[in-house]
């Protein structure tokens, strides 16, 4: 930052600042309410949290079913171990914390206590990717990369409240362990405008297009749809394939999408290492499909703290950034592929 002129900066705001656009339709705590509905049908549903019930929408379940909620304290290892023990005696636990703690801190417990025996434990991780301005301590930018290598584990990255509401019963119905990247609080409601139903393990083509195909997961599907609408105004015809299940990946749908001469762009709220982009790239390479993959993802670095809109702009996840990136790719088709720009650490971050 070279300018010395004072200017108003956005603030980091709450840790759990909503990423909904101003005026966007939202639904409050879709996970907690979906879990409540499910719990009324299935008495074996139980909930656990590691001192973050209030921040993972688990408090909705806690208040409705206090006898079936277990406060485990700020102790993620025992929370996941205990969830495994509950599943061993026939319960179906949903265990919530922040993604960083479920994956980085308690991975051995997720892996060996839950995934290895193939137990029906549903791990719910809030603040996935870049959904908080609190910096690397709370930004789970590599949770998919950590977990994709874990056998038996089903991984879901929902787009919005519709996805979450429909995923919760599907995850409980799946016999094995699952990990849900939770969007909490006022969660955008987007997919009800499309002919869409969440189906575990299936990708869904939300719109068709002749020029570009966006293969997206998580909240980036919302951005993909916004970008597609904006590009339509510029007469660019953009398809969007939503991939809510990261593992097992719907490779057939991805190969179908790639076997055209359209520009193929992946979009994810995750580092470019080990997430959707590399999943798609390896799917194509293993099938002998030579389509180039343009990854829109977070850079391979520890991200800055600051206001979420600022950070989404800076790291290329905002709709503006997505549109700009796609246009640049369309304009310079011969340009060599570059991974997402690695931004230098900002000497004057938004919180300074």
């Amino acid at each position: 930052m070279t300018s010395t002129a004072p200017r108003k900066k956005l603030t980091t705001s709450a840790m759990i600042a909503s990423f909904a656009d101003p005026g966007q339709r939202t639904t409050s705590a879709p996970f907690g309410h979906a879990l409540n509905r499910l719990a009324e049908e299935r008495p074996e549903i139980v909930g656990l949290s590691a001192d973050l019930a209030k921040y993972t929408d688990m408090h909705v379940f806690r208040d409705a079913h206090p006898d079936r909620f277990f406060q485990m304290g700020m102790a993620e290892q025992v929370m996941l171990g205990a969830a495994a023990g509950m599943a061993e005696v026939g319960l179906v636990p949903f265990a919530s914390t922040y993604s960083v703690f479920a994956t980085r801190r308690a991975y051995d417990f997720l892996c060996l206590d839950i995934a290895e025996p193939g137990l029906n434990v549903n791990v719910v991780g809030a603040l996935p990717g870049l959904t908080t301005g609190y910096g690397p301590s709370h930004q789970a930018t590599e949770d998919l990369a950590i977990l994709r290598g874990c056998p038996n584990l089903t991984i879901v990255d929902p787009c919005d409240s519709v996805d979450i509401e429909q995923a919760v019963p599907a995850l409980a119905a799946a016999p094995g362990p699952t990990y849900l990247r939770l969007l909490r609080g006022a969660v955008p409601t987007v997919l009800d405008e499309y002919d869409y139903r969440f189906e575990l393990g299936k990708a869904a083509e939300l719109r068709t297009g002749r020029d570009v195909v966006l293969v997206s997961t998580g909240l980036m599907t919302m951005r993909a749809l916004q970008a597609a609408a904006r590009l339509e105004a510029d007469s660019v015809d953009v398809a969007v394939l939503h991939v809510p299940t990261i593992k097992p990946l719907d490779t057939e749908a991805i190969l179908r999408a790639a076997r055209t001469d359209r520009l193929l762009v992946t979009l994810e709220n995750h580092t470019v290492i080990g997430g959707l982009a590399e999943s798609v790239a390896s799917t194509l390479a293993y099938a002998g499909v030579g389509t180039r993959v343009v990854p829109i993802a977070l850079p391979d670095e520890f991200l800055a703290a600051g206001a979420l809109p600022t950070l989404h702009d800076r790291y290329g996840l905002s709709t503006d950034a997505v549109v700009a990136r796609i246009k640049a790719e369309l304009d310079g088709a011969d340009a060599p592929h570059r991974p997402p720009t690695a931004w230098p650490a900002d000497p004057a971050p938004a919180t300074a």
Partner: protein
Amino acid sequence: MTASTSSAAPDTAGTVDREERIERIRQAAYGIRRNALDMGEVQGQGYIGQALGVADVLATVYTDQLRFRPEDPHWPGRDRFLLSIGHYAIALYAAMAEAGIIPVEELETYGSDDSRLPMSAMASYTPGMEISGGSLGHGLGVATGMALGLRLQGNPARVYDLLSDGELDEGSTWEAAMSCSHHGLDNVTAIVDVNALQADGPTAGVLRTEPVTDKWRAFGWHALRVDGNDVAALVDAFDEVREHRGSPSVVICDTRIGHGVPLLANREKAHFMRVEEREWQIARDQLQEGLTR
């Protein structure tokens, strides 16, 4: 006690003569040690020192305390016995064979390709093995969840977790200890095998865990410390903790590596003991002498 439930039903405790119980446990402990030596010989080395040391504890639990049905390892009413220390598998296979859960003849496959008895315990391989331990510091957390779940379901089954003093190094053990206490899980019994030895040497030199009993009490546990090779003391301790209400219990058992076989008990202590081919028969003979003495 039903015909198909093991001998260990709690309701027999008051009616069976204490001396009879102790003698039955001593015989079972002999069988466990003999089974362990047979398995050790298959591999030529291994965690035989720990198996001999913990044999009296396992004999007490499986012969006298645990409710289970040998022919139905998934019986929902069973007490759960979790082997947090996966490398003690040799000891638990020896005990489960003695208890009729797995055939004695199968023990010779221990640690061999395609065996149901891998070197490190795995639930998916072995009937009666509740969890895959081995990454240490996991068992008590799983026990916490089982105990919470059983209580929620109104199932009176108890949960036993066998851990080692070395495992007290793991922070997750203490997360679970705090959790069991916070939730008042009096259906949990932790058993700590204090043999004072871990992989890199004596526990006191690797990472000091003493005073062990004080630590558990500070975490809100009903804690008893006994000579883990004294069957009478073990019976009294396990009887007491089964009656205890309001908090989880821990039986801290001081055991001696290689106990029951002087040849192995008196040699330099090693986490992973090497035994010469000719020594296995000597060991069996010494074990036999100890039983008849």
